[in-house]
C-alpha cells in the first residue's frame, strides 16, 4: 500500500510524521507546478473551487508516481470540501485510474466514520487503540510546533537585519522538529526552535508595517497559490500575522492555540457583521479582520479561491468591516489563471496606501493639520 495525500503548506511534514509513526509507505505528493494545475483544471468541473482542481492534479501526479491509496479529508458541509472526496473518486475512476480512496471524516461529522477511516490506513494489527490515541496526541503536538515556526517566520521576516537569516533558522528548526517523536523530544525541539529564532539579529531601526492575512485555508497556506505572499511582504518590511493554521483547524475544542483567539472570541468579534457560521473559514475571516483592526493593524489581505462560497460571503461583509473599523482590506480572488504580476501590483498599491495612512496618522498625532 503506497499512500499519498494532498499538499498544502505544512501538510507534507505532518503526513511524513504520521507515516513514520504508523509505519505507512508514504509517497510525497509532487510540488505544485503549472502542470498540476493544468491537469486539475482540465478534469474537474468548471465551477468547482480551486482547491478541488489543485488536489485532483496532485492526485493524478501521485498516482502516476506509483501511489495506490489516496487520503482525503471529509466533512458534512456546508462548505463544498466535504464532498471533494466523492467527486475526486468519480473523476479519477472515469480517467481509468485504479486506486483506493480513504476519506478521513472529522470526528464532529461522525465518530464512527472518523474511526473507521483511520483504521482503514492504520490497521488493527499495527496499533492498538491506546497506542493510536497516544501517537495522534504526539503528532498533534508536533503540528503545533510546525505551525508556530511558520508564525515566527511571518512575524520576524519583516524585521530581520540580515536577509535570509529567518529562512535559515526556520529550515533548521523544521529539521529539529522533524526528528522529534516522543513528547519529551517534541518539547525539547520546540525550545531549540525558539532559541534559533531568538538568535536571529533584528533591525530595530527599520519601521515596519503590520498586515493581517485572512482567507480560505488552502490558498492562504500554500505558497504556490498565494505567490509566497508572506515572504514577499517580509522582504518589504511587513510583519504578517495569519489567522488560519492547520493546527488550529485540527485542534480539539476550538481553542486555536496558534492564532491565539478561540472560536468564541472570533465569533464575538465578527458578530456585528456576520452573526452565523457560514462554513469553511468564512466566520474566521470576518472575526480575524475585526480583531486585527482593533489591534491597530495597517491592512488586511483576504485570499479566496474563485467561487468559494463561505469566503464570498465574508468578502461582501468585509467591505462593511473595512468601512466601519477603518482598516484597508484587499480581497484577492485566486483561480488557475491568476498571475503573479497582477497580485503583486495590487499588493504594492496596498503597501503604499498603508504607508500614507500611517504618515498621515503620525502627522495628526504631532498636531499638524493634514493639509500642510
Amino acid at each position, binding site marked *: 500500500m503506497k499512500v499519498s495525500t494532498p499538499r498544502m503548506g505544512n501538510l507534507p511534514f505532518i503526513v511524513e510524521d504520521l507515516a513514520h509513526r504508523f509505519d505507512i509507505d508514504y509517497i510525497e505528493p509532487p510540488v505544485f507546478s503549472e502542470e498540476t494545475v493544468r491537469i486539475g483544471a482540465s478534469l474537474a*468541473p468548471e465551477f468547482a473551487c480551486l482547491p478541488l482542481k489543485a488536489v485532483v492534479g496532485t492526485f493524478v501526479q501521485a498516482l502516476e508516481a506509483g501511489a495506490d491509496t489516496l487520503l482525503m479529508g471529509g466533512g458534512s458541509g456546508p462548505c463544498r470540501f466535504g464532498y471533494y472526496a466523492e467527486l475526486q473518486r468519480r473523476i479519477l475512476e472515469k480517467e481509468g485510474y485504479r486506486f483506493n480512496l480513504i476519506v478521513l471524516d472529522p470526528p464532529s461529522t461522525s465518530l464512527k466514520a472518523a474511526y473507521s477511516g483511520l483504521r482503514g490506513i492504520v490497521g488493527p494489527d499495527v496499533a492498538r487503540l491506546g497506542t493510536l490515541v497516544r501517537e495522534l496526541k504526539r503528532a498533534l503536538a508536533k503540528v503545533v510546533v510546525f505551525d508556530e515556526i511558520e508564525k515566527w517566520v511571518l512575524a520576524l521576516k519583516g524585521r530581520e537585519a540580515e536577509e535570509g537569516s529567518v529562512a535559515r533558522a526556520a529550515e533548521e528548526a523544521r529539521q529539529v522538529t522533524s526528528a522529534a517523536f516522543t513528547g519529551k523530544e517534541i518539547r525539547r525541539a520546540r525550545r531549540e526552535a525558539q532559541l534559533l529564532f531568538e538568535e536571529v539579529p533584528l533591525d530595530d531601526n527599520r519601521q515596519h508595517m503590520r498586515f493581517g492575512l485572512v482567507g480560505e485555508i488552502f490558498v492562504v497556506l500554500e505558497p504556490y497559490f498565494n505567490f509566497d505572499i508572506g515572504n514577499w511582504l517580509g522582504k518589504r518590511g511587513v510583519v504578517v500575522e495569519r489567522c488560519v493554521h492547520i493546527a488550529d483547524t485540527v485542534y480539539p475544542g476550538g481553542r486555536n492555540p496558534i492564532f491565539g483567539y478561540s472560536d468564541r472570541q472570533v465569533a464575538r468579534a465578527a458578530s456585528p457583521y456576520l452573526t*452565523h457560521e457560514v462554513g469553511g473559514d468564512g466566520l474566521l475571516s470576518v472575526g480575524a479582520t475585526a480583531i486585527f483592526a482593533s489591534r491597530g493593524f495597517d491592512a488586511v489581505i483576504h485570499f479566496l479561491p474563485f*467561487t468559494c462560497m463561505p469566503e*464570498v460571503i465574508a468578502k*461582501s461583509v468585509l467591505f462593511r468591516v473595512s468601512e466601519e473599523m477603518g482598516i484597508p482590506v484587499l480581497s484577492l480572488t485566486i483561480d488557475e489563471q491568476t498571475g503573479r504580476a497582477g497580485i503583486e501590483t495590487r499588493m504594492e498599491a496596498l503597501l503604499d496606501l498603508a504607508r500614507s495612512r500611517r504618515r498621515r496618522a503620525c502627522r495628526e498625532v504631532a498636531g499638524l493639520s493634514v493639509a500642510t
Partner: protein
Amino acid sequence: MRVGIPRALLFHHYGDCWLSFLEALGVEAVLSGPTSSDIVNAGVIHADNETCLPVKVFSGHLLELKDNADVILVPRVISQGYGTCSCPKFLGLPDMARALAPDLPPVLSPAMDLGDRRFLWLRDWYKVGRALGCGRLATAVAVRGLVESLKAHDVETGCESENDGALSVGVAGHFYNVNDPHVSLRMLERLQGMGARALTIEQSSEREARRQAASLPRKVYWGFERRLAGAVLHWSRTASVSGIIFLTSFACGPGSFIGALLEDELSREGSVPFMTITLDEHSAEAGLVTRLEAFTDMLRRVPARKPASAALERGAVL
C-alpha cells in the same frame, strides 16, 4: 409598519408561510415586484461581483424595497430538513443584506432551522412578532400558525403523471431559477411550445427522491440538492422522462458539484441524456432556444427507452 419581503431565493419555497405569518400578526406585507431587467441590473451593480446570479437578483429585489418598506424580513434558513444544511449563501444572507447598502431599512433575520427537532428557532420568530409590535398571545398564535403551514408545506405534493407517450423533459434546478420566468428566460413555457412536457422537481415524489438520494455512496448534505439529486435519479432510473436538463446558475457552489455528480452517475448507468444549462445575468434568449431545440430534436430521434431495458443496461455497465 410595512414589512418588505424580497420576491427571490427562498421566497419561492416558503413565501406563503412567511406571508401567512405576517398576516396572522396583522402586519402589512410588501412584496417586491416580479423580477425585471431593472431589478437584475440593480442587483448586479450593488451585490458583490462574485456571488451567484440568484443572490444578485435577491439584492436587486432588496434594493427595490428600500423606499416602500419600514423593515425587511430576510429569514436565515439554516436547514431545510433533518440531517441537512443549507448553502452557505443562505446562512449568511441577512448579513450580506445588511452590508449591501448603507441606507437600507433594518433587516429582521429570524432563523429557520427545519432540521432542528426541538424547534428552538421559533423563539426568533416570536421575537420578530414582538418587535413588530404585536401582543404576546397574537404572536404565539402566529408562530403556531407558521409551524402548521410549514408542516402542510412538507406534505407530499408530488404527483407522478403517467407517461403518455409525449416527449417529457425533466427540468432540475432551484425553484428560484426555474420558477422565475425572467431568470430562466421562460424555459418551461418554451419547452411546452416545442411540444415537450416539462417536469420540475416540485412534481416529483419527495419520498422517492429521498429513497434514491440515499443510494448515493456519499450523502449529499445540502438539503435542496439532496432532493434534486434524488428526483433526477428517480426520473432516470424509472425512465419517466426522455431527457433531463440541469439548470444551474453561474458560480453556484452546490450546483457545480451536484451537476458533475449527476452527470457521472447518469453516464455510468447509461441513462437518459443530460444537459447542463448555466444561467447568468448575460444569458440571452437565442442561445437558450437553440440549445433547447437541439436537445428536444435529439430526444425525438432517440427511440423511447423502457424502464426494464434501462435497468438491464445499468446492470451491464456496473
